């Protein structure tokens, strides 16, 4: 089956843990539930004893029936059987009850850890790994893991039963017990053989599921484009391939798991036949009674069943480990952005300094080279330049989303690498280039960065943005549902919500990355008025192509391929007649009514 296994992608951050490491880590999750697990252990013991009583009582009853029928008490025997069954059932109930709670909690903890890891991974992590696959790790893999743990507890009780049974059988007849046990190595051997194969197929199957997940996630997110371009067929064909691959892998996986049990049954069949043959012979020699013989046959069933389940389960267990491994790999993934310390950041004044910085996302595609820039506190700095010149990248670096390769980035003279990022970022207000809204109302979205804000505060802020004109066109004002990613709002409206969200945060540093690019000029001017007063005495970085919005900036920087080629105020740069003047001129041509009139006329 090698050909199917090849080419299934493990993620780069996947790593191998030894079984022992995994088990240790999993046990760590059970620590808080220690007492529950102790009680579970006790009732497991109790129920094993009760399970053992049944065949023993039956076999002794048969012996009595054969040899001393006159003193035999059938009703008493039946009552003992009934009591054993009831006690066993109660023990079982307690076990399941407690282990459901423990497993539920452990899975919850694991999920939370996985989710925390999700919030901690760098932006570069998400550039690389599709959402669908990450989701699959946090939910499906933890799910598979929890199922396994539940089964483990179940099987522990069976294993105990085997031990108790064998001990008891030795007291009945030593030779027969050895014959019975002769089968164990065969079962174990087969089971271990399966182990290797099973682990591989199971990992592949989980990967394949993640791939299916990722495909569906992307194609459904982009369904609008597929429809507009009428390329459903292509997407559908791709899906068919992915789905078929998943089927092949799943089928192999099913074969492996589905065959373990029957194959072991077959092996056990040999054992049963041996017990029958030796047993009858011994009994005919008078070493064994019919009742005891029956007990050994029963015992065979009681031993191989748990052993088989344990061995077949062993692969089930592998499934759990494989899933656990994937979750732990997510949790342990190396951060690319490395902080050297975790210093809380007191109120930021707003000085930002890039010192001789080199930065790239992908080796060989430099974005910034030897970049130096000092922004004094309170300055409004405008960044202009062609698309792809690195403007958004500068904003992302200030956010500490990506690791730079050399140089320094200082905030208020402090190295950004020493900051506690959460306390630092909460003082930044960033409107990203593509506005992202969460499913919910407009109000909830504005409140996102400051959950404790009152409705009144949110409303006030919303009305400050462009004098609140935009709220009129919303069907239900601030209570309008924005839909997934804000899809029920127009692009411009989404940008306005994003601006309001940042204004409410009242940050020390403002970063507006083409924050009004999709807004009409009229609304934009209105917003600008509001922003100007708000940005007044804070450090602000404004990225815009509509140059009218940045004319009043304290300083304008023109970037070209990551280098500062011009710097100064609007008037200075216009006078210098360089790159900016050119840009402004062409922009002006695009935008000025009078100018267009004049040229046309």
């Amino acid at each position, binding site marked *: 089956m090698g050909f199917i296994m090849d080419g299934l992608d493990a993620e780069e951050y996947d790593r191998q843990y030894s079984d022992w490491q995994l088990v240790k880590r999993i046990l760590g999750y059970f620590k808080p539930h220690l007492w529950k697990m102790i009680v579970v252990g006790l009732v497991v013991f109790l129920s094993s004893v009760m399970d053992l009583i049944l065949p023993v009582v039956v076999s002794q009853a048969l012996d009595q029936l054969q040899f001393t029928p006159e003193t035999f008490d059938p009703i008493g*025997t039946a009552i003992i059987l*009934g009591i054993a069954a009831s006690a066993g059932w109660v023990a*079982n109930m307690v*076990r*399941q009850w407690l282990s459901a709670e423990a497993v539920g909690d452990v899975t919850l903890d694991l*999920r939370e850890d996985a*989710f925390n890891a999700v919030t901690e991974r760098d*932006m570069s992590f998400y550039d690389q790994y*599709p*959402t669908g696959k990450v989701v699959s790790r946090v939910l499906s893999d933890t799910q598979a893991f*929890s199922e396994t743990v539940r089964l483990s507890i179940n099987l522990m009780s069976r294993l105990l039963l085997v031990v108790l049974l064998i001990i008891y059988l030795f007291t009945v007849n030593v030779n027969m017990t050895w014959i019975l046990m002769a089968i164990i190595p065969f079962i174990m051997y087969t089971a271990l053989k399966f182990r290797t194969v099973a682990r591989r197929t199971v990992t592949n199957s989980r990967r394949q599921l993640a791939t*299916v*997940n990722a495909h*569906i996630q992307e194609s459904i*997110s*982009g369904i*609008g*484009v597929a429809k*507009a*371009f009428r390329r459903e067929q292509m*997407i*559908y064909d791709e899906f068919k391939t992915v*789905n078929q691959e*998943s089927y092949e892998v*799943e*089928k192999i996986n099913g074969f492996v798991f589905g065959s373990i049990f029957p194959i*072991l*049954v*077959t092996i056990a069949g*040999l054992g*049963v*036949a041996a017990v029958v*043959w030796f047993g009858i012979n011994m009994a005919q020699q008078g070493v064994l009674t019919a009742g005891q013989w029956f007990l050994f046959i029963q015992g065979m069933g009681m031993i191989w069943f748990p052993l088989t389940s344990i061995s077949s389960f062993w692969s089930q267990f592998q499934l759990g480990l494989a899933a656990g491994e994937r979750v732990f790999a997510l949790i342990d993934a190396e951060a690319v952005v490395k902080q050297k310390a975790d210093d809380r950041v007191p109120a930021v004044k707003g000085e930002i300094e890039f010192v001789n910085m080199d930065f790239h996302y*992908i080796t060989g*595609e430099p974005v910034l080279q030897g970049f130096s820039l000092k922004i004094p506190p309170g300055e409004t700095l405008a960044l202009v330049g062609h*698309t792809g010149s690195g403007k958004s990248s500068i904003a992302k670096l200030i956010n500490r989303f990506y690791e730079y390769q050399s140089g320094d980035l200082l905030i208020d003279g402090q190295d950004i690498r020493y900051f506690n990022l*959460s306390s630092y970022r909460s003082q*930044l207000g960033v409107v990203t280039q593509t506005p*992202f809204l*969460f499913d919910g109302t407009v109000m909830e979205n504005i409140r996102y960065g400051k959950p404790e804000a009152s409705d009144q505060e949110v409303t006030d802020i919303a009305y400050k943005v462009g004098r609140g004109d935009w709220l009129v066109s919303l069907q239900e004002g601030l209570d309008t549902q924005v*839909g997934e990613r804000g899809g029920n*709002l127009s*692009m411009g409206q989404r940008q*306005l919500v994003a601006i309001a*969200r940042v204004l409410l945060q009242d940050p020390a540093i403002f970063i507006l990355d*083409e924050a009004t690019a999709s*807004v009409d000029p*009229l609304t934009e001017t209105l917003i600008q008025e509001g922003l100007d007063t708000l940005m007044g005495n804070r450090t602000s970085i404004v990225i815009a*192509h509509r*140059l*009218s919005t940045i004319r009043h900036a304290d300083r304008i920087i023109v970037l070209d391929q990551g280098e500062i080629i011009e710097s100064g105020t609007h008037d200075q740069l*216009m006078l210098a*007649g360089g790159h900016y003047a050119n*840009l402004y*001129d062409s922009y002006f041509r695009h*935008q000025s*009514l009078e*100018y*267009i*009139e004049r040229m046309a006329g």
Partner: protein
Amino acid sequence: MVHKSEFTIEGLREYNRSSAVRWIMSHCFEHKLYFFVGLVGFALTYIAFSGARVMFGRGAELIIEGGDAGAVIAVSLAVLILSVSDGLFSLMGSMAMVILSTRVERDSRHELYASLLGKSQTFHDQQRVGDIMARATDDVRQLNFVIHPGIMFMFDMVLGFAVPMAYIAAINLELLLVPIIFVISYVIVVRRYMRRLEPVMMQQRMQYGTLSARLEETISGIEIVKVAAQEIEERKKFRRNAWKYRDFFVQQGKIEAAYLPLLMFGIAFGFFFLHCLHMHERGILGIGDIIAVAGLMQVLSFPVFISLFSISMIQLGIAGARRILELIEQRSDIDENLAGYSAAVEGAIEFDNVTFKFHGSTVLENVSFTVEPGQTVAIVGQTGSGKSTLTQLVSRTYDVDDGRVMIDGVDVRDWNLDRLRSQMGKIEQDIFLFSRSIAENISFGVENATQEQIENAAREAQAHDFILSFNEGYQSEIGERGVMLSGGQRQRLALARAFLRQPRILILDDSTSAIDSATEDEIQKAMRRAQEGRTTILITHRLSQIRWADRIIVLENGRAIANGSHEELLGSSEHYRRIFARYGAVETPVGQLAAGGGA
């Protein structure tokens, strides 16, 4: 009934969707062969297994009453053959079930996906991708479980009870008394148990969907989570949802813990044994027979024991099936209209008194205008006035509530949808790129585009140079939704994608908003070339582009309040002037006017 669908696939099988169980069954019957091989395999398994129990009785008789070596060998051999064939038959049954269940998983996911592709945008607007993912992967996987242990359970129920009971009856009919009472009460109790379990399972699945949707959203918006430093808050939200799921899980565990049939079996076995002993006293039943029937009675514990798992599996599966069906069965409002009008598009567009509502609230109201073939019409208006929505009516992404949208004089609802859409090219405002290579993204709208065509389109969109600056050029992967590109780069890829398509009607929705004005100059030239000979709907805030439109429509709050050429509107529309007048107030660039040249 036949559903409306925007996209149909030839030769797709029809399944019975009238209920979740019937749907699953109709999927199973697609692979009848495996179903029956499985059934036969398991029947033989039970026959062999129970047969071995009967042989044990023989063996006991040999011990008690004595017998020659030949008889001993015969019995042992019979046990050997029965036990081994037990294993082999169950192997056969298992394999058949594996094939059946994985095929059903594949087919049902296929069916779901195909139906999703056919649903209209209105439907997709209302879905959360994360929830769809949960349904298409996990719920579908649950279906697999319904069959694998699930249907096996039904076999077990029937065979695991019937076969040993038949053997028991063959030994002595009277002995059936206890097993029959047990089976009857078992059925009653199990039904009650299932009723109790069902709602918990359904809620559990639903909560799983919610969890998945929330998680998907957080990851998609991770940048915002980070800039707003809301990690802690997000964790709390996740915890709340995960906690709810945990509660349903524990609830399920507790219901399962109190699974009565296990107890009932224990007690039934006591009575059964008593019955055997009683019959022994009456001299009807030998010890050998007691051993045989005790073994047979224990076979009954199998289905009882296994049903504890399989019932939960089945219920999860049915809950999953319901969720899948719910999605498949949702009505879609737009139909592919295969028999509809099908012709080459000339490019005349007419809005005739169009009113459109999103969920009951009016977005466009009585909009009327016409565009001649080859003309360029610009739509201007404030944010939220309905510009983007208007273009979506042209491509029939949504259907109007009142009035008509006509292309070449034919109502879009009467057009063959495929012909209509495949002659349009659109750059949506909210650009979506796929996580594939740049070349694949550009050629997305065209089958078998050559590298040369791709490069030409990229050049027109001023994208060629930046593409070449990447290590892998046109083969560079751009990440999910194109995250590895800058905003303007994304827009230029979208432009190239639309250019390559050579559409009859070109829709440009704010397609240069993230592009600097110098680059835009170049793109505008290409756009002007692209507009030649084709009808163009242009939404932009750049006056220079609007200026050259043949006709401009001014929207305010969903009403077309003015309509005409630039010159006409300047004179007649206060609103038009207002939107753009601000720029007039911007001071004239020093000494640059002349240098700028004609726009």
